[in-house]
């Protein structure tokens, strides 16, 4: 049975209000992957070479304004997630996490509208 990526989202929700930076970082990372994988699966893209880039390109290929906006939001989220995963200098605090989740919520809503 395939893994349910929403379990990542559940973990992310549990950690996103934490005062511990390591949990905020994990929360951002898991929430991103839950969302990214949901779009990747909806678009029928396997996890082979350059999957993130391919998902973003796939969303942009029809020149549909809403899909292009979703591609942009996904790329934004990816970049914000990369800082949480790799940048040990930047402090990941509640404000940073809140901005990530605000963007993620907007992206999820747009995704539900255009990729039901």
């Amino acid at each position, binding site marked *: 049975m395939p893994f349910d990526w929403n379990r990542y989202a559940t973990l992310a929700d549990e950690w996103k209000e934490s005062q511990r930076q390591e949990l905020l970082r994990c929360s951002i990372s898991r929430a991103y992957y839950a969302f990214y994988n949901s779009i990747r699966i909806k678009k029928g893209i396997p996890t082979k070479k*350059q999957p*993130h*880039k391919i998902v*973003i390109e796939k969303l*942009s290929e029809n*020149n549909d*304004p809403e899909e*292009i*906006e979703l*591609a*942009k939001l996904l*790329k*934004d989220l*990816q*970049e914000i997630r*990369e800082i949480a995963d*790799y940048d040990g200098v930047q402090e990941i605090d509640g*404000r*940073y996490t*809140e*901005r990530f989740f*605000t*963007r993620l919520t*907007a992206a999820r809503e747009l995704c539900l509208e255009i990729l039901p």
Partner: protein
Amino acid sequence: MPFIATPPPTESTEFGKGKLNPQVQLIYSISNKPDMSNSALESSCVFDFWKSNLTSKVLTDYNLTETLVEYGIEISDKEEVSTFLSENPDLIELILISKKYISKYFEDFKLQLDTHQDSIDGFQSLNLFILNNLTAEAALKAERELFRGWLLPYYAKFDGKLNIREKYSNAF
């Protein structure tokens, strides 16, 4: 003025030091861009040089990043931004006109340019951050209105190589 095909200059020119190489001055004196209809020109090494090097070299020469800073844009890494823009000169005009459009959606803001390289795919892009102290919801709303109202066709045209994104800053 007749076209003179001469070998491209080496990298030891005075580019980037505030002084144009005489050969580049010559190309510029012929026209701002070599005539594409001229087959001799198209096949010449000077044309190849113009295509591959002139734009970036001239931009460096005119100190593009300093111009952007004077325009009110903070730049985290001038060398990286300069290199990226010299490889993607079509983005410069877009950056320069962006302030006018951003000010329609954001009241108090500062601009910051930074390159980004994807850690997995290696794809490089340029981020123009709108530094602001709005709430997360208000800032994202304004950013999305800016995207839908202005940036979207350019974002698509340049394959996301220039992104404009809001970012919190307490420097207000």
